[in-house]
């Protein structure tokens, strides 16, 4: 009877990574939520490189 070689259910992706078919959802992770809120606020206030600030804060 021939031996059956079992392989992990993984798909090669970029570089040294592999894609995992079992994914944990971090969208409600308190740390991630806090970081995202802070990042949005920071960029809305301060803009991006090469951009004028979104609004005049000198008043």
């Amino acid at each position: 009877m021939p031996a059956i070689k079992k392989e992990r259910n993984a798909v090669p992706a970029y570089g040294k990574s592999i894609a995992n078919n079992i994914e944990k959802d971090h969208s409600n992770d308190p740390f991630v939520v806090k970081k995202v809120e802070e990042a949005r606020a920071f960029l809305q206030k301060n803009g991006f490189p090469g951009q004028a600030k979104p609004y005049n804060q000198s008043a």
Partner: protein
Amino acid sequence: MNLDRYNYVAGNNYHNYTFYSEGPKGRIKKTVIYTRISDDPVAYNLAFGDEDDKTGFINDIITTDNKDRDIVLATVAATIIAFSERFGNHYIYATGNTLSRTRLYQMGIANFLKEIKNDFEVYGYNNGGWHEFATSANYEALLVKRK
């Protein structure tokens, strides 16, 4: 970049990446999460920290001190490349939970600035504006964008 780094696993949507830090403190699960925070220009937040095995939540307050900081930071940089290859060369925003943690990230970038600048535009925010990253400055926040 061709620096030592850990192998990582990408989630199905390629917004989450996990890898294990290995050192004197043991094997510690690290997670990198990209979340879209701006549409024009497109930008993503990079959240990075230790993943608690029990709760599954991320924590970047813990100081692991697993003596592999440069390998860990090189691995995070590798996830930025993988993410950018899939979603485009957009801004990636990163900041630490504290100024000292942001400073730690900054030191990691400074150590490999020459290599990093081959692949990335790097900006730091201080004194009320964004500036091209310089090793001598302290920043409140960092933006990187693959060239």
